[in-house]
């Protein structure tokens, strides 16, 4: 257990002086990082996720997956029981047995993630040692990695970060295995829907950036190689650890807002283009038609959202970029923006675009936050699944945030889709009231 959810920002930069942030501690109403498995296993198509945890963990993953949307999922739980708690040597042997059982059942699996949970961490079951040990047995057929998705260390989307950080540590290893593969100039980091990746590829090509790769790759064997000049661009604001691993490998982050909304997407591409010294005229000629089309598409949602107020409970960690988009491009009024934690460096460009008077809060005391929300009585509340229906029952309109991590929302052609996710509950209220 070397890492905790950063309730305090580690580095204070730029605007902390003029921006007061309410820091709260209390009951959190957020998923733990295990939930990331639900979209990660769709993204890395030959990977399997084995949670080493309790019945609670198993129940969480299945409840979060809509009480089983998948017939044969690529995730499972090795449930720790009282026999394992008796002695640790046992637990390791048990784990080896379960992994063997699993890999026999699923010969198609190329990469196996052992995912740590609260119980496995509290009993100090060393999954990194287990991964090393098991790798020896199964290499080259299966690579075995580990990360923690536990609720004592990660919140919701941080699970993706932990997973990608584990995968990023494989980059040097991969370079050794495939020395002939070309190094990439640009690494795009964070899970994107395939269709968004394809759109982004076309834009990078048009801009003249040809050597790039997406991370995570769709197939676990396609891990890219880094060179001395590799730069990376984050697509998600919750990739703290992954970024740190890439920094340690010598890659350089291109600071940018996140590609949500027209403005965010444009700034994100522009940052990349600038980093590669691309002629601004060329950038403009590539971006302009897309910007125009996206803005046109946004117009309809703007009519619904303009002037409406919105309150964010901390959840997906996308709150700040979303608020920026909804405020600047759709005219929504911001009340409170809650985040599980605020990574000031990665969010510096975003924070600069937010109006100074909005209240920011970090961490959570859900009861107090509910009180504030009731006082504001915003037109819309963004929150997790546990709060949504009770708030609807209080007459508030909610957008539950899990869709925001499952739906393609990044990029120009998705800007209107993203806005529509927010417009729909309001439209619905109006329809039902009529």
């Amino acid at each position, binding site marked *: 257990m070397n*890492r*905790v959810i950063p309730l305090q920002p580690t580095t204070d930069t730029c605007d902390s002086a003029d921006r007061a942030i309410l820091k709260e501690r*209390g*009951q*959190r109403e*957020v*998923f*733990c*990082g*295990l*939930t990331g498995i639900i979209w990660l296993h769709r993204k890395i198509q030959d990977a399997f996720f084995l949670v080493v945890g*309790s*019945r*609670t*963990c*198993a*129940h*969480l993953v*299945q*409840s979060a997956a*809509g*009480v*089983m949307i998948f*017939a044969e*999922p690529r995730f*499972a739980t*090795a*449930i*720790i*029981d*009282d026999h*394992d708690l008796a002695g640790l040597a046992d*637990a390791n042997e048990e*784990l080896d047995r*379960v992994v063997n*059982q*699993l890999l026999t059942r699923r010969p198609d699996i190329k990469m196996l993630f052992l995912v740590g949970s*609260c*119980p496995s961490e*509290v009993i100090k079951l060393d999954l990194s040692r287990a991964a090393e040990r098991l790798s020896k047995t199964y290499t080259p057929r299966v690579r075995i990695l580990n990360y923690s998705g*536990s*609720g*004592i260390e990660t*919140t919701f989307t941080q699970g993706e970060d932990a997973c990608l950080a584990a995968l990023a540590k494989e980059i040097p290893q991969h370079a050794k295995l495939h020395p002939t593969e070309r190094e990439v100039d640009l690494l795009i980091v964070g899970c994107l829907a*395939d*269709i968004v990746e394809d759109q982004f590829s076309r834009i990078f090509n048009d801009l003249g950036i040809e050597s790039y790769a997406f991370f995570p790759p769709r197939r676990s064997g396609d891990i890219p190689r880094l060179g001395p000049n590799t730069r990376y661009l984050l697509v998600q604001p919750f990739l703290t650890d992954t970024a740190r691993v890439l920094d340690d490998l010598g890659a350089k982050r291109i600071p940018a807002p996140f590609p949500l909304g027209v403005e965010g997407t444009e700034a994100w591409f522009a940052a990349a283009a600038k980093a590669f010294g691309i002629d601004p005229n060329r950038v403009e000629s590539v971006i302009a038609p897309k910007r125009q*089309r*996206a803005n*046109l*598409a946004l117009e309809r949602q703007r009519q619904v959202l303009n002037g409406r107020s919105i309150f964010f409970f901390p959840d997906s960690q996308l709150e700040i970029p979303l608020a920026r988009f909804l405020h600047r491009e759709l005219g929504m009024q911001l009340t409170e923006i809650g985040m599980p934690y605020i990574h000031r460096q990665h969010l510096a460009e975003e924070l600069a675009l937010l109006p100074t008077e909005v209240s920011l809060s970090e961490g959570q005391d859900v*009861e107090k936050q509910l009180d504030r929300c009731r006082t504001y009585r915003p037109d819309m509340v963004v929150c*997790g699944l*546990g*709060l*949504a*229906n*009770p708030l609807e029952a209080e007459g508030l309109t909610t957008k539950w945030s899990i869709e925001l991590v499952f739906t393609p929302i990044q990029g120009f*052609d998705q800007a*209107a889709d993203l806005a*529509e996710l927010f417009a729909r509950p309001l439209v619905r209220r109006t329809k039902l009231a009529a």
Partner: protein
Amino acid sequence: MKLTLWTYEGPPHIGAMRIATAMEGVHYVLHAPQGDTYADLLFTMIERMNKRPPVTYTTFQARDLGGDTAELFKDAARSAYARFKPDLLMVGASCTAELIQDDPGGLAAALQLSVPVLPLELPAYQKKENWGAAETFYQMVRLLGKDYVLPPGEKRKPRAPGLPPSCNILGPTALGFRHRDDLVEIRKLLRQIGVRVNVVAPLGAKPEDISRLHEADFNVVLYPEVANSAAQWLSKNFGQPSTKTIPIGFNATRAFIEEVCTLAQIHCDIEELTKRSRARWYALSVDSTYLTNKRVFIFGDATHAIAAAKVASQEMGFQVVGLGTYSRELAREVREAASQYGIEALITDDYLEVEQRITELQPELILGSQMERHIAKRLKIPCAVISAPIHVQDFPARYSPQMGFEGANVLFDTWVHPLMMGLEEHLIGMFREDFEFHDGAAPSHLGHGHQRTPANEANVASEPTPVPEVAVANGAPVTESVWEPEAQRELNKIPFFVRGKAKRNTERFAIERGLPTISLETLYDAKAHFGR
């Protein structure tokens, strides 16, 4: 360690939450990490409740593990008490907090709150959800009833003459499979019989109601998984007998009425009461002939599985080819039931074993939980849900009990629905060669939630689009636009359920603008134009 793809039951503290959430005036302080708050969504999303479960989680983190987790617990308990002012405070630990051994009971006692505190010890690494619910309910009944316990040797006073007989209804909880509707049905039935309901618990009960349980003459146990241990304690300490028959199905409801009459020492006209029942006549009707000896596989909680097997074989005329449960606590009862059908019960909580058994048996109908529904979908076998675990769609808005005579009607409908009925099966046989009645044709009434096969999925995308003629400025009118390969490929990346619409919209868009070919840009221009 056990490899698990899906689990039939949650951990025991979920059982405790089902009790707390069912009741009024109770609050549960649960020592747990933040991720365990997912449990709230079982109630707010799956059961679609309009309020949060009355649970405060301490949500401790790794950094707290050094030693202030106990303080954290005390703070959480103190502020939950101050905010919610419950009449009873339940305290306990989830699996992770169990490992750090903070003793929530002791810590809460030290706070000296002026409200009864129920400390729960629910071993998360040995036990499961239903056990947790039963244990919580039992401990609560004991805590709130102990002051009224009869002195040793003393007998229960007979009911005063002239007073109507009374009972408690025990077992319904939050997140229970149709508990809400069963309760309505059973209450109605008891009223018709002339039995007064003293207390229903835990659903809707306040702590003070729990301390009035001893006032009733007997107990009606609806869900033994939850209520058995409490009922036993009540019987031992207050001399209250309880019902054994679970009123699921026409026959069982009649038997239940007889049992209640015996316990209440009254008479009633059963024939009059059965008048509302349609299930029996429907089962006798000609269309039902085709249901004869349909091979059915049954799996679920013990209570619902045993009852379903009885109804299936005796009231529907099916052949029970498989019966099983994940409730190990009631394994003996399920084994006994299975032996009546000449089969061996499957007692397991391993989803994969259930799947394997179903694959071997190839039944014509599966009666199971959400898990079996999933297996059924994969194996393309008709299925109806009879037991938890369930999905949001198993909490219907309409009245849909499983118990009593109306429950029997509901069972008939829901089990027969996925199957083909007499005339229909007959006609499909006759018209087998007709393209619309090919072998794979699904029953006509199976619209609801029906599987999309890759075949009909492809249809959506390749459906011919009627194209209106549009006059275009120079040259011939464009009546058809051709998809460029790149655009076609992009179209295929759109999820199938909106692909058909995207295709039609794009084509309409192209024709209206007189574009003979559809490029990638056209696709996205159209997307932007039409919105979603």
